[in-house]
């Protein structure tokens, strides 16, 4: 039984992680939901063997461990709320752009463009130097290595 559960958890995590890598927001949302299911199943599995109803007064030896169930319930409630919000955001993004994919970061594109300009300048300078044998004026473009990917 544990083996079946372990395989299921593994499959859920794999599918979730794969969906999360996609660029489409809908897939990301579904991926997170599936990951959440995997995590909740893991919590339940952590509680050990299933048993009787853990009502106060029952023999603790024969009942299920109530704590993981309480934890999973709390986790489900939270996932419910956040998934709703995430869907609302994906929907808003779609309304603004008529597109379901994640956009490139503007600042990143600006930096990439600056680096490209710098490379072009250098290439041009080198060809000019080769042609005239004199030092071309330098273009200052304030650019360093970009940090965020």
């Amino acid at each position, binding site marked *: 039984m544990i083996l079946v559960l372990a395989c299921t958890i593994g499959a859920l995590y794999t599918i979730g992680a794969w969906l999360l890598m996609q660029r489409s927001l809908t897939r990301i949302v579904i991926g997170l939901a599936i990951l959440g299911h995997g995590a909740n199943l893991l919590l339940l599995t952590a509680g050990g063997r299933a048993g009787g109803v853990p009502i106060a007064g029952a023999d603790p030896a024969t009942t299920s461990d109530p704590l993981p169930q309480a934890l999973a319930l709390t986790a489900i409630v939270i996932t419910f709320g956040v998934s709703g919000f995430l869907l609302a955001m994906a929907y808003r993004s779609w309304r603004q752009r008529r597109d379901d994919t994640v956009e490139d970061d503007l*600042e990143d594109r600006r930096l990439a463009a600056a680096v490209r300009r710098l490379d072009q300048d250098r290439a041009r300078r080198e060809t000019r130097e080769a042609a005239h044998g004199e030092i071309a004026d330098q273009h200052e473009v304030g650019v360093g290595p970009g940090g965020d990917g």
Partner: protein
Amino acid sequence: MSPDVALPLLVGLPLGAAAVSLLLLGRPLVLQRTVSLVVLATMQVLSIVVVASVWDGSVVSVRVGAVDPAVGIVLAADPLGAIMLVVSSLMLWTVMVYAIGSQRTKEQAPAFHPLYLVLAAGVAASFLTADLFNLFVAFEVMLVASYVLITLGGSRDQVRHGMTYVVIGLLASTLFITAIGLVYAATGEVNLAALAVAMDQVPTGIRTALGLLLLVVFGVKAAIFPLFQWLPDSYPTAPSPVTALFAGLLTKVGVYAIIRTQTLLFPTGGEVSIALLVLAALTMTVGVVGAIAQNDIKRILSFHIVSQIGYMIFGLGLFTLAGIAGAVLYVVHHIVVKTTLFLVGGIVEERAGTGALDRLGGAMHTAPVLAVLFLLPALSLAGIPPFSGFVAKLSLAQSGFAAEQWVVTGVSLAVGLLTLFSMTKIWNGVFWGDPARAAVSLDREHVVAAPMTVATAILVTVSLAFVVAAGPLYDFSERAASVLLERGAYVQAVLR
């Protein structure tokens, strides 16, 4: 007032106030504002009560619902949690004052005040809970509020960058549940104090794996080296007070969680300690180098958050009394200074309409007060004597040398220089030069509302006060560190 009442109130009061604030929607805004300010001020008072009761290095705890601690909710405050609470409440009410004065914050948006209060409750609960699962719940309460706050207004840019924030946050939360599940499977406990005892029976390999998993979970929230990319991507697009609060508080809640779990559950250090030191050096360097290429005040400052987190992890990674004390001192200093810098950046944006360095200039002549308000925390951040950053960095460097970690300590000093470079860059771009030549200037017509300047000035004053109170503050940090390292007092207080 006894801590028995103060601890639950710190969590419950803002939640109750959020409910009242929701019911006040549609009524005059002044009612919501009053509720928020009164409650946040009360939190400040309560947190001071808590600090006073643990000032001598003791630990106080309350069993909420008065049930068995093994299954019930235990709130506990040790010196670390208490000092974090005081500083956080200070940030919460000053930033609220700032937000009320700001025009561009969308503070008038219907959900702002309730969400802000929910965030406050989540932050307080994170610092007080003595249970791994309740830490998860507190994180979620805080994060759910932050998800909405960061996208408040819902402009295209905010949705794009907020999406990154939400997805990363959710992924980290899922990992957190996974970690809790595995910890429970290994030990059968979720109470932190009970875990501290039970963890010793767990085989070393499994324990290291659990320690690393928890480090990854909180590392995402704290933005340490390979897990930081979401931060400079998402923070700058939010409204300024929201960014300031997140920059000051939220990542530090992650750092707090790292310090708490690593010292309490995995106290031997060992491999994790070396990993922490390497990560610290990389975090410091990458953050500060990333900032060099940026052109926007808030983006530069965002990269610097990452860099500063490295210092805190550095202190923790040493696993010595002086190292952890230095880290605690650094966190406290950083929360105040970083929030202040973001608030100044917000004022610049509000007055000029942009935070782009190449378009601004000469603000020293048109906004001299603002220039001073920026200069003091900026110098402090770079660690120039005699400011609070110097005190914090000095204690870290000393403990680094004492622990003979030459490389990391050397990196931390070099990063300090680069920080100064970035601060100079902002100073040159915004404040120096001829205002007539700048594309946008901060002229006198666009003077911001008084609450914004007052709130910023209060924080600058507090960071200056740290210098005066450096002695007692450091002693307190040392007591906090000794409670963290010895564990016994915390475990006893929680399990009593």
